[in-house]
């Protein structure tokens, strides 16, 4: 059984796992690149889905979609399965480890004992890589942690069979086959194309740039509709989804900017560099919303802090993002396909 795995700490679990698994197989890939090629950027405000009685706000694409897109790259084959029984799931994991295959797992954060207590909520789409077993403990490369961690088998089994929204049902995956090297240009184009489509062309008003505007309108009406206390809770929830662990800051916008910068250098495309700077500015704008929101949640508002002021910032974020995606779409149309 092997005990070496290239553990690189990353900001987001799914793209981090994808990057680490590919790097392990000799295809060095940064987290930001995996995030961008996997089309990870998104926005959705889905008030009919409730998390702890608060509306779902998401700044990233659905859990598992980054891996799914990367697995579609030519020459890559990802083995993936879910289980009915805990025993079968753990046996399959042990068998893969015995063959020296590092295995990616989807887990529920609440049941992982090594997680900081303050971050243990019932969130079931956390990805990690198990790369070895020592006695009754598994050695885990959890991409959001600086070093590999240890987890007892019983706790890991619980985490793999967490219930509730996005229940993992023991989901495990590993790379069965990888090409000699990945041709980056088509993957970058496909990733950018999918993000532009989702953000600009969604028919639903809750998704993409339209969703950002929708959130802004809703947010302005929260104090009137929900009362001050509930409105503050809703507000805090939005900021948590935007900034808490796994986002890389600014609701994944900084991470995507990193991807655009890396792609610009790789493909020698100055257009992407400009889009990256614009997106960094959007991320900073999202952060100024978060700062104002935090002051309101803390009950220490400054004179200019108010719900309408925050709604105006979010509208501004939406308008700027629309421009960025329009520029990226134009780049996709104009740049020659290699």
């Amino acid at each position, binding site marked *: 059984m092997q005990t070496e795995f290239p553990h690189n700490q990353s900001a987001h679990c799914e793209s981090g796992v994808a990057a680490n698994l590919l790097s392990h197989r000799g295809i060095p890939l940064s987290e930001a690149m995996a995030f961008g090629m996997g089309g990870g950027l998104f926005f959705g405000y889905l008030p009919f889905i409730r998390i702890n009685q608060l509306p779902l706000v998401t700044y990233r694409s659905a859990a598992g979609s980054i891996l799914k897109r990367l697995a579609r790259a030519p020459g890559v084959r990802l083995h993936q399965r879910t289980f009915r029984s805990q025993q079968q799931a753990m046996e399959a994991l042990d068998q893969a480890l015995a063959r020296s295959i590092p295995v990616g797992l989807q887990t529920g954060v609440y049941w992982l004992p090594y997680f900081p207590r303050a971050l243990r909520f019932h969130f079931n789409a956390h990805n990690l890589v198990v790369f070895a077993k020592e006695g009754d403990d598994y050695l885990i490369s959890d991409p959001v942690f600086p070093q590999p961690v240890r987890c007892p088998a019983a706790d890991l089994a619980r985490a793999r069979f967490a219930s509730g929204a996005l229940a993992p049902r023991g989901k495990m995956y590993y790379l069965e086959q990888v090409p000699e090297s990945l041709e980056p240009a088509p993957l970058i184009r496909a990733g950018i194309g999918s993000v532009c489509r989702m953000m600009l062309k969604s028919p639903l008003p809750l998704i993409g740039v339209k969703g950002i505007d929708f959130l802004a309108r809703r947010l302005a009406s929260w104090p009137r509709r929900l009362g001050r206390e509930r409105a503050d809770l809703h507000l805090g929830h939005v900021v*948590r989804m935007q900034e808490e662990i796994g986002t890389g800051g600014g609701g994944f916008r900084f991470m995507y900017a990193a991807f655009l910068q890396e792609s610009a250098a790789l493909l020698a495309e100055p257009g992407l560099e400009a889009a990256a700077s614009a997106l960094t500015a959007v991320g900073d704008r999202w952060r100024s919303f978060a700062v104002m929101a935090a002051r309101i949640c803390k009950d220490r508002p400054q004179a200019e802090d108010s719900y309408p002021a925050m709604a105006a910032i979010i509208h501004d974020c939406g308008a700027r993002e629309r421009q960025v995606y329009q520029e990226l779409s134009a780049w996709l149309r104009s740049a020659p396909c290699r």
Partner: protein
Amino acid sequence: MNQDSSSPDEDIAQGVTTVSYVADACGRQQLTPGSFWQPVEVVNRQAWLVIEQQVARSKAQVAAGRRSRLHYYMTANQMNPGLLARYTGQPRWRVLLHLCPFFFQRMAAQTITRYAQLFQISPEELMSGLLKPAIPSRQDNSHHAD
């Protein structure tokens, strides 16, 4: 985010260094180790205050005999009747019944074991004695591999 605005506060990550993307002086986004950004601490604290209030209310209701001890364990572990039902493989209405002290006292031994296993306590601890804290509060964080 610019480098100079990060905060040294290390409260919610309990000493674990996380990384995030920070633009350097030339505007290049770099994966930079650091702790949580201060507004995140504020909203994380806000979320925990709500949970703590719910747990305190539940404790008072259990002490007054209006809710069963199961209600406390459910609330302390951030669950609701629907989630608890899915974890224990029962219909939701049965869980709702078990939240009343009357039905709680009359649960089958098998049901008691199932709840106790989920909350990682003994059946006796579920049925009587001091209420134990939520699972994360009972576990420590010394699980680093090296």
